[in-house]
C-alpha cells in the first residue's frame, strides 16, 4: 500500500461488539489515486484533504497516519 489523501473520516464513539475496547477511534476512506480503502487512523486526528501515509496492515485492516 502507498500514501494517500483523506476523502472522508469519522471518529467512532459507539463501536461494534468486536471493537468495544478501541473506542473512540478514527476511521477514514483514504483515496489512493486508483482506488479508495477504508482504514484506521493512528495517532493525530485527520481531516478531509490531509495527506496520510500507510503504516501497516493489522488483521487485514490498513492503518494510516497523518504525514507530518
Amino acid at each position, binding site marked *: 500500500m502507498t500514501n494517500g489523501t483523506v476523502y472522508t473520516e*469519522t471518529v467512532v464513539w*459507539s463501536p461494534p461488539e468486536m*471493537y468495544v475496547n478501541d473506542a473512540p477511534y478514527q*476511521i477514514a476512506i483514504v483515496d489512493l489515486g486508483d482506488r479508495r480503502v477504508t482504514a484506521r487512523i493512528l495517532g493525530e486526528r485527520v481531516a478531509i484533504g490531509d495527506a496520510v501515509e500507510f503504516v501497516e496492515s493489522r488483521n487485514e485492516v490498513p492503518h494510516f497516519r497523518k504525514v507530518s
Partner: protein
Amino acid sequence: MRRVAVVGVGKTAFGAFPDRDLRSLAVEAGEKALRDANVKPGGVEAFYLGNFAGPSFIGQNHLAPYVGAGLGISGVPATRFEAACASSGAAFFHAWSAVAAGIYDVVLVGGVEKMTSQPTPRVAEILAGAGDMSGEMRAGATFPALFAMIARRHMYQYGTTREQLAAVAVKNHANGAKNPLAHMRKTITVEQALAGKPVAEPLTVYDCSLVSDGAAAVVPVPLERAAEFTGKPVAVLGISQTSDRVALDEKEDITTLRAVRSSAEKAYKMAEVTAADIQFAEVHDCFTIAEILSCEDLGFVKKGEGGLYAQSGATCLRGERPVNASGGLKSKGHPVGATGVAQICDVAVQIRGEAGDLQVARNEIGLAQNLGGSGATSVVTILGAAR
C-alpha cells in the same frame, strides 16, 4: 401489465417491547391489514415478508411460513425478502410485480423486526452485516460511521451544517410526538440535538434513528378489483427498485445515493409525474443526513441544497411539501425490516385522509422511499387516490 391498488393497511406500535416476540408483532400487523381489506387468511394467494436479520436478532430462520402459520395462511408461497433496511420495500416491490403481472390477485406483504432484545454493540454488529464485512466493517465502521462519513463529505462539498442536520431531527420529533404509534413521542430543540452524545462524529444520538421492535403489513390487489375490498383504495402509480455497490469506499461520489436517483426516475416515469408533482413523502431518514440526501436525489431540490431545504421549513407538517409527517425513522422508530411497508402504510393513510393530527393538506399524491445499507438498495413507491 395490470394496475395495482393497496386495499388494506396495518401497523403495530413501534417501540421496545420486551414482552412481545417477532411472530406476535408480525401477526398483529398482518391481521390488521387483512381486516382492513376484508380478506380472510384463506383468501391470501401469496405471503411476502420483509425481514432483515431475524436469524441474528432472535435465532429464527424460515420466517415467512413461521409468521404465515400464525396468521392462518398456509398452502401458498410464503417467502422472506432480505435487502437490509429495504427488506420490506423489496418484498412490496416483488408482490406488486406478481399482482401487476397477473400471477396473483390477493397478496399479503408484511415487514417485521425484533431488535431490542440485544445490547447496543451487538445490534451495531448485526446491522453492520448490511455493509461490506470484508472491508469497511472490518476496519471498525458501523452504520452511523458510514453515514457520518457521508455527512462529513457533504459538509465539505456543499457547506451543509450541523444545524441543518439538527433541523431534520427537530422536525421529525415534532411530528412523531403527535403519532400514537411512534417509538419516541417527544419534541426536541436544535440546542438539544447539537449537544447530543456523539455516536460517530459529526453525528450524535439525535441524528440516528431508533432501534425498535415493530411490524407493518399491506394488501395489494389489482386496481380493477379494489372496490370489492374497500371504499378507499390507494393506487400504486409508480414503483421501482434499483441497486448500487454495497461498500461506501467503492462509490465514486458518496454524497449521491445513486440507487435513490435511479429508482425515483423510473417510478416517476411509470407514474407519468415529476418530482414537482409529489405533494408529500415518507423518506428513509435512518440518519438525518440521509433525509437531506434523499430530498436531493428524489429531485425535490438540487444536489447540495438539501440542508438549506431542511432548514427552510418547506418539509414541515404545514410546509409546502411535508417530509416524514409520521415522524420518520428518527422518531416513529426503525424496526428495519418493517420500515418499507410501514412507510407505504403511512402514505396510504394520508391519501385516505385518515392521518388525524398528522394529516397533510395536499394528499392526492405521495411518495415512499426505502433505503438499504448505505444506498445499495432503494425502493421508491408513488401512491395516489384511485380514480
